[in-house]
């Protein structure tokens, strides 16, 4: 801890804290524009300069580490004058005529800073230069006329998303934000995560869907969780008049720390699927709108006789994008009351079954994504993380310039190839041989961190080379990199888990122990799972393969999920199909009864992400009149059949051992 004095106030802060943060802790506001708490301090805007005893010139407080005994002043006349002057310079540099700007009136940090300095005008002539406006991007517009060159977007692109698309061209007064080698944003390497838009302090980067839809004062932000994939990013949903205006990453989010990907930020904003607004029942071959009473009655009449008929009664399948409340109710109803043999999820345990089966015996062995922060090597097996779990991909990509190495082994060519230090292609189905081979090489070369007896190492290596089709020297290189890392992390995806081989998972686990990925407190072995509630579905045991074999009816709880063609094809044969869904799809078209339910934003619910965080999604919107909560619909069906369903999901998810610590 160091003690310093700011404006006569004694403050104690941890070593390494900047003066700007120290001042904030003490409740002293220092205006700033280029600084952002998630980004590396830059010291460019010069708004936050302070006077420090012993220094010849004032210093930017955002980059200045507090030191013992430092005496800082933030409100001298010279500093106040300077701040106004700097702001005047910024206002006059480009087009900053507030009344015409979409962020004016609360969302603009430049305007707010000017108000803070009690400015009513700026005394300099505007520059009257025109700068390019880039509107080629599908989700946002870059208007260089509103840019103050703070480089927050540039830093966010590189430091947070690890993508390095944005940069600055030219220099001095001619400086300008560009994408790649000055190509239009829409044609650039941008991965459309929108982090740059979220950090922009002015209206230079404006979101297409939310522009001119109101500012902070008129929009209610609600903390929630994204259900795009199993990463479970914390989001702020900005809602106005029962309309989703914008989605922003929550900087306090424990997993994503403010990051979102294209899917999380923009998919819900550009939803184009047709909403189902009324219950439908098939009459004379046609789906016709009916009342809830009629629809539920039809379902109850059809299903009630099938209760207790385990094998030829009902088969039930639920989306892993549904909240755990719904999934738990779904399980109680169909597995508990109907005693149905096939009660599973749309993922059918492809991403979880083997992992949870191993955890059943060994207890929790998976770690938290946070380990990536300290990892010096990441091994990705059977996972295209950058595309399948984009935000986890950002955590990897942004660590690469800081020295983390990446090894990717995948049966599909090209996976992570551009990023990885070593990208290998193995033969499909050869993963067990691969992992055993890697272990054998490490043991043979004496590189292991923990003792492991492998008497048949030579044979295992030979077998690995033969089965994987990877030359020995490449395998050896991978093994040495893995064994040479101080804190390695092993991530594996569907390519591994879909094989449903417990032996493979155990083998991976012992590799992780051998190289020190898993040791003592540290657990650097994580499976990526699939959708938002993969983990919850697995905890509820909804992870069996979905095989129809003479069942008379199928109940599919889809919620607002997308329906795979594979599922549609398999359900063509279902004699009677009940679908509860929010949107029309090929599946609802072939259903006998369709029950319209709410989307993720229209109902409260919990989600358990890939590393075991139980997070709550809030209800922020009210759905169409005839649409009902997906849990409630299941409850009503149960009621109509006089089945007393107890819906204690917190109890239900504790009936099975988790593969990671839940929190």
């Amino acid at each position, binding site marked *: 801890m160091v003690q310093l004095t700011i404006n006569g106030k004694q403050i104690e802060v941890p070593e390494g804290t900047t003066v700007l943060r120290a001042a904030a802790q003490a409740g002293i506001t220092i205006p700033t524009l280029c600084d952002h708490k998630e980004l590396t301090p830059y010291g*460019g805007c010069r708004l936050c300069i302070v006077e420090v005893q012993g220094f010849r010139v004032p210093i930017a407080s955002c980059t200045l580490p507090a030191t013992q005994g430092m005496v800082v002043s933030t409100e001298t006349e010279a500093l106040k004058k300077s701040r106004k002057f700097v702001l005047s310079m910024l206002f006059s540099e480009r087009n900053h005529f507030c009344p015409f700007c979409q962020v004016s009136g609360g969302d603009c940090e430049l305007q707010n800073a000017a108000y803070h300095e009690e400015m009513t005008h700026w005394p300099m002539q505007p520059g009257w230069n025109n700068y390019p406006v880039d509107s080629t991007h599908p989700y946002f517009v870059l208007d260089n006329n509103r840019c103050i060159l703070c*480089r927050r977007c540039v830093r966010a692109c590189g430091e947070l998303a690890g993508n390095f698309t944005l940069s600055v061209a030219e220099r001095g007064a001619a400086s300008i934000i560009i994408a790649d080698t000055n190509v239009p944003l829409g044609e650039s390497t941008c991965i459309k995560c929108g982090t740059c838009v979220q950090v922009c302090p002015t209206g230079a980067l404006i979101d297409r869907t939310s522009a001119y839809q109101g500012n902070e004062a008129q929009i209610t932000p609600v903390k929630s969780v994204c259900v795009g994939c199993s990463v479970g990013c914390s989001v702020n949903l900005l809602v106005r008049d029962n309309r989703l205006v914008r989605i922003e990453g929550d900087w306090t989010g424990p997993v994503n720390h403010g990051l979102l990907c294209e899917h999380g930020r923009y998919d819900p904003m550009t939803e184009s699927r047709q909403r189902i607004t009324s219950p439908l029942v098939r009459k004379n071959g046609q789906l016709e709108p009916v009342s809830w009473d009629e629809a539920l009655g039809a379902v109850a009449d059809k299903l009630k006789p099938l209760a207790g008929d385990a094998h030829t009664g009902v088969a039930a399948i639920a989306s892993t994008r549904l909240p755990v409340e719904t999934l738990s109710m779904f399980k109680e109803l169909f597995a508990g009351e109907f005693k149905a043999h096939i009660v599973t999820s749309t993922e059918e345990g492809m991403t979880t079954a083997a992992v949870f089966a191993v955890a059943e015996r060994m207890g929790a062995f998976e770690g938290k994504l946070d380990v990536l922060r300290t990892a010096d090597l990441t091994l990705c097996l059977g996972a295209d993380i950058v595309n399948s779990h984009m935000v986890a991909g950002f955590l990897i990509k942004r660590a690469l310039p800081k020295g983390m190495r990446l090894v990717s082994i995948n049966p599909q060519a090209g996976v992570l190839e551009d990023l990885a230090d070593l990208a290998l292609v193995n033969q499909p189905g050869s993963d067990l041989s691969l992992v055993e081979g890697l272990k054998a090489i490490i043991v043979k070369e004496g590189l292991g961190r923990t003792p492991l007896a492998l008497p048949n190492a030579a044979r295992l290596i030979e077998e690995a080379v033969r089965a994987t089709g990877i030359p020995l020297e490449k395998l050896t290189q991978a093994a040495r990199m893995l064994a040479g890392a101080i804190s390695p992390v092993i991530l594996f995806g569907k390519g591994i888990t879909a094989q449903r081989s417990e032996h493979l998972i155990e083998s991976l686990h012992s590799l992780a122990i051998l190289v020190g990925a898993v040791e003592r407190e540290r657990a650097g072995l994580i499976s990526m799972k699939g959708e938002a509630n993969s983990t919850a579905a697995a905890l509820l045991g909804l992870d069996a393969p979905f095989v129809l074999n003479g069942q008379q009816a199928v109940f599919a709880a889809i919620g607002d999920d997308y329906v795979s063609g594979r599922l549609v094809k398999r359900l063509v044969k279902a004699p009677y199909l009940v679908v509860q869904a929010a949107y029309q799809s090929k599946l609802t078209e072939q259903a006998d009864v369709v029950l319209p339910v709410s989307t993720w934003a229209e109902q409260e619910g919990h989600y358990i992400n890939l590393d075991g965080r139980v997070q709550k999604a809030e209800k922020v919107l009210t759905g169409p009149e005839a649409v009902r909560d997906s849990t409630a619909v299941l409850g009503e069906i149960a009621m109509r059949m006089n089945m007393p369903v107890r819906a204690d999901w917190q109890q239900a998810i504790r009936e099975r051992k988790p593969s990671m610590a839940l929190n």
Partner: protein
Amino acid sequence: MKFHRSMVLVSMDADSLRKDAGAVYERFQQELSAFGLNDEIALSQIVEVGRHDILPMVIVYPEACAYGPVSSDDARRIVEEHLYKGRVVEDLLAPVKELSGRIGWLKSRKGAAPMEKRIVTRRAGRIDPENIEEYISEEGYQALAKALGTPAPQVMEELEKSGLQGRGGAGFPTGRKWRFVAGTKSPKKYVVCNADESEPGTFKDRVIIEGDPHSIIEAMAIAGYCVGADEGYIYVRGEYQLAQRRLERAIEQARAFGLLGKNIMDSGFNFNIHVHSGAGAYVCGEETALLESIEGKRGEPRARPPYPTTHGLWGKPTLVNNVETLANVPPIILNGAGWYRTFGTSSSTGTKAYTLLGNINFRGLIEVPMGITLREVIGIYGQGMKGGATFKLAQTGGSSGSIIPASLQDTPMDFESFRKAGVSLGSGALLVCDESTCVVDLAVALMKFFKFESCGKCTPCRVGTERALRILTGISQGKGKQADLDTLIALAAEMEFASNCGLGQTAAVPIRDTLKHFRAEVEAHILLGVCPSGVCEMSAELQTA
């Protein structure tokens, strides 16, 4: 090394090469073998020092005859007449009257120019820079040997006692900087030589590197030994192609001689040097922008503190010194601090290299002891104002230097006296202007440069230079208003107060100095619509008004 009866030095710097010095050199090789003189006569390459009018230049020792400009046919005559028959080729001799820059140095060996003292340029032009043996024969690498045999703190103490101050412009005590870096605890440290000499009009570092590259290598090795670094970078201005080649060759030779690499002189000390080329940005001469550039990033100055001495290249403690500063180190180590203190003043010791340019009779490089006055420099080394004109002002240190009016020309040129007078010594350029120079025009030219070279990171510099240029251009075109002067003063004050690096902080100095010393002249542009020097094109409208 062989000894020869005569020595022929051919200027092979960038300018000479453009004028076909390569062919001249080859012709000398051919002719010397044709006359069978190879064993008696040594042929070497040198850099030219400030004589653009007589390139390519050839100097023959021991007579110290300077020929120039020399064509390849002249080469044959020089070999036949001078070297074979022993007769000086009178009609090819460079005009004696103008031989002052480099030849001033030749004379000084006979004691003709009393106040000149060459330390950092003592070898430039005298030895073949591409031959390490010639460097070694001139006390080369002796200082390194001496340093390696002495405990590092003692070496640094000697350096501190010598009073050497950084020659890049700021004048920070070199010994103290070394001690800062030596005092940090880090397994990895770096020594960086700042050879990004990009102040307009300054070329002292180029002459030192092109003429005596080994002196920098030796100094960096000594620095590495003292501060505990095993790796060095020389960041060379992109345009200095020849200097880069010379350095790379010198490093190669030093490595071959075991003077770089592992276990240098059996001392257990390891040191390696890389040459890194700049890419033409002025701001990369600022030490932290230079480090960013070496790291492969955009050349923007970092925020300080932390300083490079603790968080430098790749976050490691780094010593950054200017070329001229480093070139002073070996002679100090070799001859002692006491010897060094005999040059210059008590507060600013040693010599300073200046590049003279402007309206004077001799333009080129001089190295003189600290503390001589501007009047002496112009009168003795500049050989007076051109055409007997009246001295009006001098601009020091390229663009970020000060404007020195005639009233200050008797101020001793050293760090302390200049600081007291409110001006700065800068990097070593002396642009001497007579009464035909318009200060507004000069300020416009300087501000154009700064606007173009500002990196754009911080607001005051990026916007300030652009704004200042607009206003100054307006004044030079007769569109100025009296209120513009207040705006300029406010801009200048703000840029100095709030800018991130030296560029922004000093970019406003020309404005400040102009308005301080020549306000009346500027006001004449505004109020009378007249340029007293007749330089600015005033708008017709205002001229008639």
